[in-house]
């Protein structure tokens, strides 16, 4: 039986471990037949899992807090990328040198539901409130909107991806990292499953396969790159090569492991920002598969 895994977005170096597990036959070794589907909207996959239309989905930790607060039956079962990737990016040669310069500026974002919270936290120390800036949903045209000068900064840009992209286009960017600007650290990419189906034995095998793939990736970055582009020729370009390298240090080496305190801390942050009403016990939405 096929295990359907919804990616968070199109295939990119963030998914390297999954691709390698597939190409290297690690999934097969664990008795898994995995089908990976890239969605068009990153907000869909968890909902589809909650609705029972897919087995696993890649999502973001902040989203998970929002979703369980809204009653979606989801649980995190593994971590893909254990640090935030999200960052606030401006043009390196532009007028913004510090976050304090953002007052009265336009900030583009791709709606994920929690950008305002992160921005609020990042800007508060500089005495800037959300009313002092203009937020513009630019959907997924993050770097183009910045490059074309339609916005002064973007939030939601991935430091491993958008930064490289801008550099290649000849407009290098400057990133401000949320975890350095007052936002608690969190897991950028996690795997969620429907909380009613946690006894599916394939999930555990899947997480094990993931760990194996991560080890291979860390040990053999060159070969991993070749495996990565083997069946995704369209990814074989400068951008992905550089993004691949930038992403390498960020993969969770122990995908199954859960730092409950970290989750709790972030939930508290979300509550303080008014995004969720109550702080649920961590084990209601994140577990380590036994």
């Amino acid at each position, binding site marked *: 039986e096929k295990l359907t895994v919804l990616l968070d977005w199109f295939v990119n170096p963030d998914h390297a471990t999954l691709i390698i597990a597939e190409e290297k036959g690690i999934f097969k070794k664990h008795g898994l037949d995995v089908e990976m589907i890239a969605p068009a909207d990153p*907000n869909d996959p968890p*909902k589809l899992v*909650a*609705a029972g239309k897919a087995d696993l989905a890649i999502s973001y930790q902040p*989203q998970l807090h*929002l*979703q369980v607060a*809204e*009653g*979606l*039956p989801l649980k995190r079962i593994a971590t893909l990328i254990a640090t935030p990737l999200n960052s606030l990016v401006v043009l390196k040669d532009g007028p913004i040198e510090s976050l304090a310069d953002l007052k009265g500026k*336009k900030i*583009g974002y791709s*709606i*994920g*539901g929690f950008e305002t919270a992160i921005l609020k936290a990042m800007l508060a120390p500089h005495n800037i409130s959300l009313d002092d800036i*203009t*937020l*513009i*949903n*630019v*959907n*997924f*045209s993050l770097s*183009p*909107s910045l490059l*074309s000068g*339609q*916005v002064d900064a973007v939030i939601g840009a991935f430091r491993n991806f958008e930064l490289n992209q801008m550099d290649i286009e000849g407009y290098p960017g400057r990133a401000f990292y949320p975890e350095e600007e007052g936002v608690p650290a969190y897991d950028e990419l996690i795997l969620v499953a429907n909380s009613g189906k946690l006894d599916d034995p394939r999930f555990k095998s899947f997480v094990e396969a993931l760990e194996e793939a991560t080890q291979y990736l860390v040990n053999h970055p060159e070969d991993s790159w070749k495996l990565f582009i083997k069946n995704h020729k369209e990814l074989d370009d400068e951008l992905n090569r550089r993004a691949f390298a930038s992403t390498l240090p960020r993969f969770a080496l122990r995908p199954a492991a859960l730092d409950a305190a970290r989750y709790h801390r972030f939930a508290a942050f979300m509550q303080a920002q008014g*995004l969720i009403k109550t702080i649920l016990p961590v084990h209601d939405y994140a577990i380590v598969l036994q």
Partner: protein
Amino acid sequence: MKLLRILITVGGLILIWESLTALLDLPKFMLPSPLVVAEALYSHAGLIAENALTTLIEILVGLFLGLVFGMVSAVLISAYRPVKQWVFPLLIASQAIPVFAIAPLLVLWLGYGLAPKIVMSLLIIYFPVTVGFLDGLNRTHPAWLNLAALLQQSGRRRRLRNTLNLYRYIKIPFALPSLASGIRVAAAIAPIGAIVGEWVGASSGLGYLMLHANARVQTDLMFASLLVLTVMALLLYYLIDHGLRLALPWLADQTDLHSQQRSL
């Protein structure tokens, strides 16, 4: 009477919707019950109203421009053979390129204000209006055209003036019913342009609000916005439909007579 009927329809729908959510025990994120939506509508009234205004303006301006451009294009295309031969394929192509496939680019070119949404409504509305009107203009029966040409020949030879008069007094009146048909379609699809525009880049509007609600799994707010959008679109449609009926009395007459006769 008509209002009553609409109210009953709406009531029935809500009932079906309610019982659907109740019977299937659907979770809120799949389909919130009408009550929950009503609640969201009430508690977020200000927010929704504010965003609805943005969208309304986008729709109205887009509709207006779409109608004007559509009608002018149809007349030009029908009046000048070269225009038709060279421009018409472009027109189709402009449709074939789904506006919102280039929407992200439009936003890059035009910024994140009203402009790209209006351009998108315009692009979407433009086509049905043009095709409808053009069809009507081309269908004018030749006998009338012949007669008109004859009548004009005895005047001084002023090509442009004659063409204008031909359109004003013969072709356009003949094509009005087809134009009306096109305008009806346009009115119904006008909201699409605005919403797509908001989707690819905006800082307010119902589409923007829906995206937010969707991302935060606030399905109730999303449905509330959707409801407001639908009501807005329905009102727009019926207003325009009504206006068209008033503007084309000789067609209305026909239908009235007809229904009178059938009722025998």
